[in-house]
């Protein structure tokens, strides 16, 4: 706890290291075979999603099994607002905020009725919400094209440059994810983050020390959903095709898997979790149809060996920051 502000040299070192890593990545990764870059893009998108879900599940202790709904809302906002669907062609940057906003609003709207629910009942209601959203996307054909999906989505433009290769998206995603993680971390250790933790540990006692649990929970739902929305918009921009298949209940479970396997509530763990859960299935590709079988085995083994997640909670961002010598 008692950390004194780091020395100037320490900070310089930290900055240098981070800058070096980021620069290195932005220089090296695009040099990799495009397939790897695409995989890394996917990992980053799932890091965004997981960081979002983690706010609700990891910080506030509210189990949400329908998180994919917000991902879908984000993706469909870009698909509808930047394609021939209604011949609307808004700029990517704008839709990024619209999509995030819409998802955030949806998050709050979902939050209001479920405030009283806890644990698995909450889980099931959110599951239901997720399915409802997916089914709506599948049924509201006039808006979403139903199962046919929205194709020929505009190529995203950012600062006048077109984003069409996975490399471009990596250059967009890396800083975005870093910012998101930083903010999530600052949020975690902010007073609101502590409030969430208190609600997670003992909601009644949390009220007893004057925490307005209603506001705190709605903020958790809203903020996490917003992140999900961002991820969705970027996904739609990368795929340039969106259909309901991509937002099944299975996706929600994958995101829950990521945060649990990484280490619930630990941002470092989340990054590792996302990497593992996206890369492992890719590594198993050569086994073609045996792939999912092996994937299932891998899941069970990992969970049995490390039920509290791959990354121990003491290796959290604070530890990272100390190691870097920032403070």
């Amino acid at each position, binding site marked *: 706890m008692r950390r004194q502000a780091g020395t100037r040299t320490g900070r310089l070192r930290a900055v240098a290291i981070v800058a070096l890593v980021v620069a290195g990545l932005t220089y090296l990764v695009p040099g990799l075979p495009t397939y790897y870059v695409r995989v890394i893009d996917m990992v980053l998108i799932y890091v965004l999603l997981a960081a979002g879900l983690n706010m609700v599940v990891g910080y506030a202790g509210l189990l949400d099994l329908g998180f994919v709904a917000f991902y879908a809302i984000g993706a469909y906002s870009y698909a509808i607002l930047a394609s021939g669907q209604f011949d609307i062609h808004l700029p990517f940057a704008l839709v990024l905020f619209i999509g995030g906003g819409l998802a955030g609003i949806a998050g709050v709207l979902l939050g209001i009725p479920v405030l009283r629910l806890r644990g698995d009942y909450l889980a099931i209601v959110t599951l239901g919400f997720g399915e409802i959203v997916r089914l709506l996307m599948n049924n509201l054909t006039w808006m979403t094209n139903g199962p046919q999906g929205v194709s020929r989505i505009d190529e995203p433009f950012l600062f006048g440059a077109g984003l069409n290769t996975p490399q471009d998206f990596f250059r967009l995603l890396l800083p975005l994810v870093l910012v998101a993680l930083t903010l999530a971390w600052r949020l975690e250790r*902010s*007073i609101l983050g502590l409030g969430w933790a208190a609600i997670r*540990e003992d909601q009644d006692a949390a*009220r007893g020390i*004057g*925490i307005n*649990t209603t506001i705190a929970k709605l903020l958790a739902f809203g903020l996490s959903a917003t992140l999900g929305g961002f991820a969705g918009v970027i996904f739609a921009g990368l795929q340039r095709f969106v259909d309901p298949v991509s937002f099944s209940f299975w996706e929600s479970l994958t995101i829950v898997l990521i945060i649990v396997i990484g280490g619930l509530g630990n941002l470092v763990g989340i990054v590792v979790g996302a990497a593992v859960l996206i890369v492992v299935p890719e590594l198993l590709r050569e086994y073609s149809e045996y792939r999912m079988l092996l994937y299932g085995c891998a899941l069970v083994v990992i969970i049995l060996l490390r039920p509290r997640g791959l990354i121990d909670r003491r290796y959290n961002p604070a530890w990272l920051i100390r190691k870097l010598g920032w403070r």
Partner: protein
Amino acid sequence: MTLRLEALTKRFGALLAIDRLSLTFKPGMITSVIGPNGAGKSTLINMCAGSYKVSSGRILLDDVELQELKKHQIAQRGVARTYQNIRLFDGMSVIQNLEVCLFPELFGKTFAEVFVPGLSHRMKEERLARCQAALDQFGLLPYADEFAADLSYGNQKLLEIARATMLRPNVLMLDEPAAGLNHGEKHRLKQKLRELLRPDLTMIVVEHDMSLVMTLSDHIIVLHQGKLLFEGTPAEVQNNIAVQEAYLGSPGELDEIREAARARANRVRIRADAGIERRRPGTN
């Protein structure tokens, strides 16, 4: 501040836990609430804290009607409490248990805290400084970074009181603070409560340990079946037949009262220990 109850009533279905109770708790003194099991002591605290809804009657903090308010609003009005079986935030560190109490005060600044560079750390340090002071006051500073659940039972009790004091309370309600404490711990507790008492603080203690009650309290309220049986100074209470009857059904010596109380205290200790067992953070 003064806490006044007016014709306060609480029903659980058919059971009448508190029956048209009117009382006044004055600031600057320690008021103990005693009475046999089921007299409605904890119910009283739970209503004042907003954990239970009031069936009828009013709870007035000076002239604010608490029964109208939500639980967190009551807490924000400076009504702090501890729980009969400890309710700490087990998965959080000891210091975080106090830090989070600044939520009502600092929540408005969250946005700035998250987005303004550097501010996050500065605010954190300020908070920690305040909490460390509070911890130090209760001699818990050495445990600052441990999990609340890993503290000894006595220290958990202290931490809970420390947490309550973090709210800068006007009313401090302690539900069986001594239950399960050994002799030395009780002694320290007594001193601590004395230190905490400020002229503007109304301290309410629900306790079974008669020796503690008699030596600690300035004023004692005896409840029986949800009604006020008697109130007065410790001396007056000790010499009151009605009180003894309430406890033992027949007139008896005060030692017997003490005996009964100690026996219960032990039971509580056992239950509470089981409680801790149950609340080890079995989580990530």
